[in-house]
């Protein structure tokens, strides 16, 4: 019902405020915008032009990583993608492994996919929670953040830390799966499936939510492709693309899962698709737990460099310690790119190494940065109250977009 009233091109010259337009600065510290300023030109209640002004949480991750050893980029990269750390860690390590041409053993591949899928569920629940409070429903916010806890407990049990796990290292993973993990994971998955039914009534089928999200922020298929949006927002507009299927990595080639896609690409589809993806992730975690191969959890090039104390530790406590190679890692000169499908979309890495102790060029693009065109192109013509809906439906996370 809120079709496009204005054409973006002839509005470029609006920047003066008068009786006709109000310039509203939904500022860096505003309950509805996170750490970014959204300059909105309002004609009454209708949005005429939106100019997102990002960069308030720009933490120069690229600049820092170009002046540090290779292993030290893992904590930097994780703290940028905070609710979805494992995918950032995985993307960086895949690129470094391409430079070093190391292949992790199958058990490590499966453990990587396991942690990635658990993190996808926590990232989607984080997105649903934020979407809920932007629409005003504090119950969905509290439920979503509460339901993240059992999955974060699983991560804690497996990796020792709640969110910034630094679990994946070039060549494999750092800890093996403790015993008792499989049963615990099974109860958590069944708990989540039961909870998804409760979300149906309070969130997905709630008439007020449907009224607020159906036909709001419609992004047609061709626009989604030409604007280059990513992740669930892309699939909600009907584009059949998922990096796990089309550029497979870790254990995804031998996991069977579907990619849910929707037709009309409005906020309600973006809401539905996240619930579907949680179900797919639960299905994948079950497959991983069922056929987890035996064997080493770190590549041989690294295992042979462990000294006797470290080898004893590896045999007894299944804990991978770092040989000196980890600090003085000097990948041969070359360039590598890698893509990983994070919860919010795909992360892209491009690293150029000149055989030095530090990477020569460290470039990476996060999903939220590529979802920015939603503000400039999709939000125009809607009402002011639709801006938080669109912001919540694309699961935008300012620190991740600013890098």
């Amino acid at each position, binding site marked *: 019902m809120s079709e496009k009233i204005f054409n973006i091109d002839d509005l470029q010259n609006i920047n003066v405020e008068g009786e006709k337009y109000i310039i509203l600065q939904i500022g860096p510290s505003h309950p509805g915008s996170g750490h970014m300023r959204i300059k909105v030109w309002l004609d009454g209640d209708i949005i005429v032009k939106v100019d997102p002004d990002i960069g308030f949480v720009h933490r120069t991750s690229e600049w820092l990583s170009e002046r*540090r*050893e290779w*292993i*030290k980029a*893992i*904590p*930097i990269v994780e703290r940028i993608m905070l609710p979805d750390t494992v995918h950032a860690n995985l993307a960086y390590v895949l690129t470094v492994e391409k430079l070093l041409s190391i292949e992790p053993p199958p058990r490590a591949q499966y453990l990587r996919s396991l942690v990635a899928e658990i993190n996808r569920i926590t990232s989607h629940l984080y997105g649903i929670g934020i979407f809920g409070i932007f629409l005003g429903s504090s*119950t969905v916010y509290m439920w979503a953040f*509460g*339901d993240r*806890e*059992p999955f974060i*407990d699983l991560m*804690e*049990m497996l990796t*020792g*830390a709640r969110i*910034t796990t*630094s679990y994946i290292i070039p060549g494999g993973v*750092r*800890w093996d799966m*403790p015993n008792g993990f499989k049963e615990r994971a099974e*109860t*958590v998955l*069944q*708990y989540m499936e*039961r*909870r998804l039914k*409760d979300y149906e*009534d*309070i969130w997905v*089928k*709630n*008439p007020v939510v*449907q009224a607020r999200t*159906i036909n709001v922020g419609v992004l047609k298929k061709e626009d989604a492709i030409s604007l280059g949006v990513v992740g669930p927002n892309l699939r909600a507009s*009907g584009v059949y693309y998922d990096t796990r299927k089309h550029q497979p990595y870790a254990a995804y080639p031998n996991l069977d899962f*579907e990619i*849910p*896609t*929707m*037709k*009309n690409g409005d906020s*309600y*589809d973006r809401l*539905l*698709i996240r619930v*579907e993806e949680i179900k797919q992730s639960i299905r994948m975690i079950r497959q991983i737990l069922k056929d987890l191969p035996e064997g080493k959890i770190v590549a041989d090039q690294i295992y042979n460099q462990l*000294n006797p*104390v*470290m080898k004893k*530790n590896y045999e007894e406590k299944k*804990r*991978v*310690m*770092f040989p*000196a190679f*980890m*600090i003085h890692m000097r990948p041969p000169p070359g360039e590598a790119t890698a893509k990983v499908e994070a919860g919010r979309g795909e992360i892209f890495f491009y690293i150029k190494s000149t055989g030095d102790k530090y990477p020569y060029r460290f470039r990476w693009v996060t999903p939220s940065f590529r979802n920015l065109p939603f503000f400039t192109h999709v939000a125009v013509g809607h009402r002011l109250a639709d801006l938080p809906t669109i912001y919540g439906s694309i699961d935008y996370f300012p620190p991740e977009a600013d890098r």
Partner: protein
Amino acid sequence: MNEVRKPRDPVTGHVKALAKGFKYLVEPNRMTLDYPAETMKLPPNYRGFFTVDDKKCIGCSMCEMVCPPEAITMVPRIIGEGGKTLPAPEGEKEAKGPKRTKRPVVNWGKCIFCYFCVDVCPVDAFIPTQVHDLAFEKDNEYRPSYEEYLKPPEEPYKNAKKVVSKADLKRGVGYEPAP
């Protein structure tokens, strides 16, 4: 699979939403923890505060090199009898004696608990603990001296009930006393 969207029917939607809200109003379930009285029992490999074993450490400063936020600094020490080290007198820092060595000290204000140092130590000299909720009042407390750093950190709420979260199927997250 293309999800076909079910038509909107507001009436049953309202009734179901209110019923679900009422169901959770009446059912006795709780997700949050009464923190100081109950604390979670953490898994064995939880990455909390850690100290160094004075005798085992060989002063190779690998941990100082690998620490991403550069939180570890090496302190000059002298090896006393029985392997324990004594503070090195300031004056003769340059003198190269067989007894001179270095020990790591962690600045808790910078540490991010990634355990790179614990994993890189060739002699596995770090002793991890599961204490994670320490609070420091004064400014110099989170930059301990070597002697303070050696004392293992102790739990702030020792007499709290230890609980483990159980993903109870019927009643939500819930907690039960730790085994």
